[in-house]
């Protein structure tokens, strides 16, 4: 009987040591965390901006950088809302012992720009997406990633406006902030043309998008370097949605949330 028990025990141990066969279920280490949610109370710094990051998963660790580098396991750990005083790109990434790390969420904070005194529109925004009226793009407030946010002004035509400064003001550059959300048929502009004081013309061409990317608030900075009383800004929407997109051949939407004058 004892022998039988011993034999049974050995058999059980052998069974136990047998390498497991491949499980049919999905394994944790093959799946990534979602990007952390990052919320700022504003995006223009006068004194400071509060940044909050979150990913509601047990034992998750969020790390961040403010120098433009991708966060690593050695980066600063996010433990409480950050009071950011410096403009720049803040990047956040979630880490976990079992799940693959997330992609990076980044937010850009801007130094508060020069205040324009007025804006005159030469083309009309879409009735449905006209933001908070004519001054939306010079109100020093940026939009969320949601195109229905009323800080966005949407166009299905070229957007042309003239920004006025009552007193001639030295403008080093202008930043045009737009939405890249091709899944919603909202594309980066095709080109941007500036007419400085009705005279000097500057043109900036934007590379066409060649694949779908996560929706993102993007900016282009165009040097002005002049004393400015008026600045005509012409932002051309993409005239034809590229071949790879379901809306190919049709006109793309253009969504702008802010002009920033530095």
């Amino acid at each position, binding site marked *: 009987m004892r022998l039988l028990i011993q034999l049974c025990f050995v058999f059980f141990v052998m*069974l*136990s*040591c*047998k390498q*497991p*066969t491949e*499980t*049919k*279920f*999905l*394994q*944790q*280490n093959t*799946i*990534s*965390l*979602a*990007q952390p*949610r990052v919320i700022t109370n504003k995006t223009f710094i006068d004194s400071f901006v509060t940044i909050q990051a979150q*990913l*509601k*998963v*047990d034992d998750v660790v969020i790390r961040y950088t403010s120098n433009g580098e991708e966060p690593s396991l050695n980066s600063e750990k996010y433990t409480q809302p950050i009071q950011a005083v410096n403009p720049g790109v803040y990047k956040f990434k979630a880490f976990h012992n*079992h*799940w693959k790390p997330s*992609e990076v*969420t980044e937010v850009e904070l801007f130094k508060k720009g020069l205040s324009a005194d007025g804006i005159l529109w030469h083309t009309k925004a879409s009735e449905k997406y006209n933001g908070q009226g004519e001054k939306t793009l010079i109100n020093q407030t940026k939009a*969320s*990633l*949601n195109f229905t946010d009323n800080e966005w002004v949407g166009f299905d035509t070229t957007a042309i406006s003239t920004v006025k400064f009552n007193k001639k003001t030295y403008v080093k550059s202008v930043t045009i902030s737009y939405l890249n959300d091709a*899944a919603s048929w909202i594309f980066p502009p095709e080109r941007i043309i500036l007419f400085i004081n009705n005279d000097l013309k500057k043109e900036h061409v934007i590379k066409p998008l060649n694949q*779908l990317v*996560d*929706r*993102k608030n993007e900016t282009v900075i165009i040097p002005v370097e002049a004393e400015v009383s008026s600045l005509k800004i012409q932002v051309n929407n993409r005239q034809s949605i590229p071949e790879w997109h379901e809306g190919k051949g049709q006109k793309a939407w253009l969504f702008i949330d802010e002009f920033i004058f530095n």
Partner: protein
Amino acid sequence: MSRRQFLKQSSLFSLGILTYPMSGNALEFSKNDVIIGHNTHRYKVNMNWGNLDTLKTPVKDCHEMVQDSKGRIVLLTNHTKNNIIIYDKSGKLVSTWGTQYPGGHGLTLMKENGEDFLLITDYERHQVIKTTIDGKVVFEIDYPAETGKYNDKAEFKPTETTVLENGDFYVADGYGNQYILHYNHKGELLNVFGGRGTENGQFLNAHGICYDNRDKNKPSLLISAREMNVLKRFDLKGNYLESIPVPGALICRPVIHKNDIYFAVLKSKNAPNSDSGFLLIMNEKNEVVSCPGATLPEYKNNTLEELYQTVRLFQHPHDVCIDDDENIYVAQWNSGQTYPIKLTRV
């Protein structure tokens, strides 16, 4: 037990995802199995279920699934090589049919005198089609011109149907003019209500509809207003009754199984990535109790906190089918032509 107590007590199972508990025995190979969901509704994930030869039996978008009376799983895709794919529960291919449904979107099982039929909505054909379970067309319904609410057939882009016990059925025009149309079993129009708008009785993207007879005394209709992140309830005559908000969740059709309501959530409203979907399950009180692939549902002051995807598992879930073993099959839209995912309840 109150909902809050229930959620609190179950917070150990919190936050959408868990590792499988270490069993302590020799068969620990499953300890890293993904487990998604919360509270009473938690699942392991099988990505291999139903995978077929992509050359012989391809899919494009997998739009909806139902289980038929024989227990088979019926999938509707908009791939016109085989619009309907019928699997057994193990994921083995049984048969296929259908080449004429380029916008095949809504799939509902209806039973008449012990026989299974299907109601298919096709937003490209602008029609609702009733077929036998093996694909013979019984009737086709065109746009409801007689209502005066449509200028032409192109405005009618039906997304879903639901059937009552007496054979009456309702059609949700979720990609069209947002009306809900009530027909008798012969396909004759009885009523129309809803329409596009943000009022209580209106919709933005009336994507799904479901007959709710859990309360036998007060049968009603549940209709998802996907863009609004709201589930709306109407009586069978089309009178608005209530709204159930699901903040952050673009819910597709409600699917009632026993006392619970299951949803595929196409995406998280505020996620940067579009492929940010998950699943959502409500209990008999219409409280969200589990969100596989997303945040733990939490109520503060009776208001549900915004839900969002926590792991990049689902892409764009578009429908769920719950089988008689409580497992869930997930059909996905725009997921790179992948076959459904099976979730096994644990």
